């Protein structure tokens, strides 16, 4: 089936450093999402992105977070500076039609450990 690729699969950084998580969505998909999952528990919505713009972001999407997809390349989540509570698995997802009518395809996740 369609694949969403995430790089890196695991990143360990010191608190205060910057990290960029990369997502290669399914080609021709138009909607992009980031979700945060801690300890295999709830998938918490962070942000969604369409047509080059953030459509909605949750309370978890702090000022230190930013997303972009320059020139149709990777969809990135940047955290600067990182905090201990940012340790989690971050899942990228993409969809051709959006979450309320179409399937979200998730990547394998990027596990972020902030020390």
């Amino acid at each position, binding site marked *: 089936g369609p694949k969403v690729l995430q790089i890196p699969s695991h990143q360990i950084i010191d608190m205060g450093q910057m990290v960029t998580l990369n997502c290669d969505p399914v080609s021709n998909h138009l909607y992009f999402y980031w979700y945060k999952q801690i300890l295999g528990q709830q998938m918490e919505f962070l942000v969604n992105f369409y047509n080059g713009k953030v459509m909605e972001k949750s309370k978890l999407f702090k000022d230190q977070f930013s997303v972009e997809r320059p020139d149709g390349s990777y969809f990135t989540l940047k955290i600067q500076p990182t905090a201990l509570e940012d340790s989690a698995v971050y899942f990228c997802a993409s969809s051709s039609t959006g*979450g309320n009518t179409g399937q979200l395809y998730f990547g394998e996740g990027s596990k972020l450990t902030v020390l």
Partner: protein
Amino acid sequence: QQQVRQSPQSLTVWEGETTILNCSYEDSTFDYFPWYRQFPGKSPALLIAISLVSNKKEDGRFTIFFNKREKKLSLHITDSQPGDSATYFCAASRAGNTRKLIFGLGTTLQVQP
């Protein structure tokens, strides 16, 4: 406040039994309810979904029953297999331009052989 609630939190059944996973919501603007399955260390993947126009959706051994009046759904897995052991997430979405999925906390299912 949890917008999508799931119960039980975890469940163990024997191979061959029928598993029932529950989901409820309160927001009447939700109109699309997918169930995602996540194996340990893997990404969630769509299993089956239902919208407001249906009361039941069936796909092989998996069936969603939808009580719209009570805002409750249940996922039934017949002839449960050890390979069904995973975490099952109920999610909800509403029409509109944000198009985000809101997930419940999940139910972790263990099927014993």
